[in-house]
């Protein structure tokens, strides 16, 4: 797949609202930066404020434009997420494979999404920082484990002493099997990634793009067309009012004289 717009023939294009969730410092922003800019910043500062980025993803039959909402830096207040996942069609729930507590937090987010978000939302569970494990995308790139700030994705030095498995150079604390089993139980897409090396990052977004049902794309938003149409031929889509077309009509038409 190609990451940027580049298809010569125009394909149907639709926007997909995607929300990024997960504990602070698991690498949410880094994943998006890798996807959008193919860039990685070592020891990235925690994101201040919230970020909004867009990136196109070209599939064989259509183009998906991701609108990515990052709760960056405001996780502690947990106040942006509910607003972000309102009407979102996709969610990326990120944890850190070297930090078991981050998977617990990710499970909380999944439960909340299943309870509160649009019923048709596509959820991908992503274990990031694969580069810190033995099976990391690029083992040679694995940094010194005893270095606390080694969290490749801008970990703000997790306080609770993470007894990294220094001898083996393998900091993995969450097994692929455990996370994968959980993802299967909850019908989530599942990937392990490294924003640092780029392993699997594009694959996550492509998989999400492929998993978004056609029906929810037509309406542009919300769950698979629920509540969009009323009586048979009635289509909520056709009757949307386009505010971009104010000059299409003049006051005169409506004037009673």
């Amino acid at each position, binding site marked *: 797949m190609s990451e940027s717009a580049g298809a010569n023939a125009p394909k149907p294009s639709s926007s997909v609202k995607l929300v990024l969730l997960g504990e602070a410092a698991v690498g949410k922003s880094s994943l998006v930066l890798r996807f959008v800019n193919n860039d990685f910043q070592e020891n990235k500062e925690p994101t201040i*404020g919230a970020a909004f980025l867009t990136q196109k993803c070209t599939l064989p039959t259509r183009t998906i434009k991701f609108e990515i909402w990052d709760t960056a830096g*405001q996780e502690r207040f947990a106040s942006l997420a509910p607003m972000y996942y309102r009407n979102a069609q996709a969610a990326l729930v990120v944890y850190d494979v070297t930090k078991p507590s981050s998977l617990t937090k990710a499970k909380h987010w999944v439960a909340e999404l299943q309870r509160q978000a649009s019923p048709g939302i596509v959820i991908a569970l992503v274990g990031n920082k694969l580069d810190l494990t033995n099976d990391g995308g690029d083992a040679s790139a694995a940094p010194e484990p005893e270095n606390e700030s080694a969290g490749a994705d801008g970990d703000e030095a997790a306080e609770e002493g993470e007894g990294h498995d220094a001898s083996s150079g393998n900091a993995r604390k969450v097994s692929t099997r455990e996370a994968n089993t959980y993802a299967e139980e909850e019908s989530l897409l599942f990937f392990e990634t490294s924003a640092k090396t780029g392993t699997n990052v594009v694959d996550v977004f492509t998989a999400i793009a492929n998993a978004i049902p056609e029906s929810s794309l037509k309406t542009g938003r919300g769950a698979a067309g629920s509540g969009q149409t009323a*009586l048979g031929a009635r289509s909520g889509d056709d009757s949307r009012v386009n505010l971009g077309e104010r000059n299409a009509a003049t006051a005169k038409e409506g004037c009673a004289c």
Partner: protein
Amino acid sequence: METLSETPWDAIIAGTGLAQSLLALALSRSGKKVLHLDRNPYYGGSEAAFSLDEAQEWMNSVNQHPGQSPFEDVKIFTYQHPQDSPQSTPSQHGSESSARPEGTPDIRAKLAASRAYTLSLSPYFLYTRSQLISTLISSKVYRQLEFMAVGSWWIHSPGHPNAASSELGATRVFHRVPGNREDIFADTHISMKSKRTLMRFLRHISKPEEEDDVETDEDLTMPFGEYLSSKFSVPQDLHDPLLSLSLSQLSQQDTTANYAVPRIKRHLASIGAFGPGFGGVVSKYGGASEILQVACRASAVGGGVYALDTGIQSLVDGDAAAEAEYPVEAQLSNGESVRSKFLFGSTWDLSAKEQMSPPTKVARSITIVSSSLASLFPITVEGAPLSASTVLMFPGHSLSNPQSPPVYLQVHSSDTGDCPREQSIIYGSVSLSGPEGHTLLECAIDRLLRAEGPPAIVLWSMRYNQMGRLSNDGTPSTLHPHSPHVYSFPPSSLDLAFEDETVDTVKKAWTRIVGDEVDHDDFMIFDDRDGASDE
């Protein structure tokens, strides 16, 4: 960021109603450091929208803490299928609307899952020429929103010649209010003579302002009905339809011409601005609640920091130390203490030391019915979009007596995204609180559903009283200064259409904070962010 107190703020905004959210957006995009709080665990305050479960939680919270919000006496009723409760159906509903003695519908119309509904506490719509629409466009916020048309206006007329026909659904006891010249010509229930007087009145009020000079001294302080009769000889039976176009929630007698006339003008001038056949729009997925959340999202992207479930407990107001850079110090409910140059909030959000009691109390209800009420959503003009919302007005005399205020029902079809297909949501409002008001609302909904016939039944309803401000109760829509740094917003509006004063109020608040650093004409005018525009 680990704590809210580690940095001083340019502005703390308490409460996430529409006005506060627009202010947060304007400030964050003007480079100000904004902390936006809400003491509730949800966005919107008195303009929030809820699922069924959230509505239940909200009811419990309001009833347990009387006097802490502009709401009181919330009650929820859920339809019990007779089959489900063999013993006599609980008289919970108390009204005829629930128990249909004969011909109880066999279809098992059911409530869908809690989240299939978005029930709005403030279901007001926007006129297409509203300043808010211009603001949403200039700030590019509209790109995140979807709007649906508000279609016809209907007047309850029980003696309607169609009342005997059972084929017309609900419309057999409602008369569609003509919204333009073609409508008036086509209307078969208005006599030629009445049509002429109506045309004369409409021509008079839609004259451009300049040509009006000669008559600017016309007396508009008289009651609207009297104005119509004495100046234009408009017959009595057309007074209520015209009143409904003004959306006045007071009776004809209590509505002055200077209230009604500009609003009827607004109604007529809005039709056609975004396409033929409609003059109002509602935002999908919860109306104002969706707009304000989109504003908060945009504000967060601009750097605003958000904390829900975090209220202001006490305030050290910097009157004494007015020279200090951050004179306002607020103690938050989460135990933190924050400093700021300015603090803005509604009176309910600022600690209640100077509680202004809102001037008006209305009865409201939200009702989910098991019918699409399709006949209320006709396409009346070629090329018009299918409307998703409609306005029904029940004149006082049609339900009780001529002195009663009118009852308004706003029906939302499933096209608003607020309810499942084959159901609709009816938002009722009457400017008469307590049991009297709720009896009128119930009666109006009952008349509508009886006219529609089976299978239209009430599946769920919620009733409450709400306090606030009506555009015709004489309350000014101005910021109230508690000190040079602390301001409260006016009580929230109870109007059925968004009143533009709110945008002015927000601009005043913004101006107060940005001072002369930015050109005031740039208020809410932003470029698209990278990649956010259309191709």
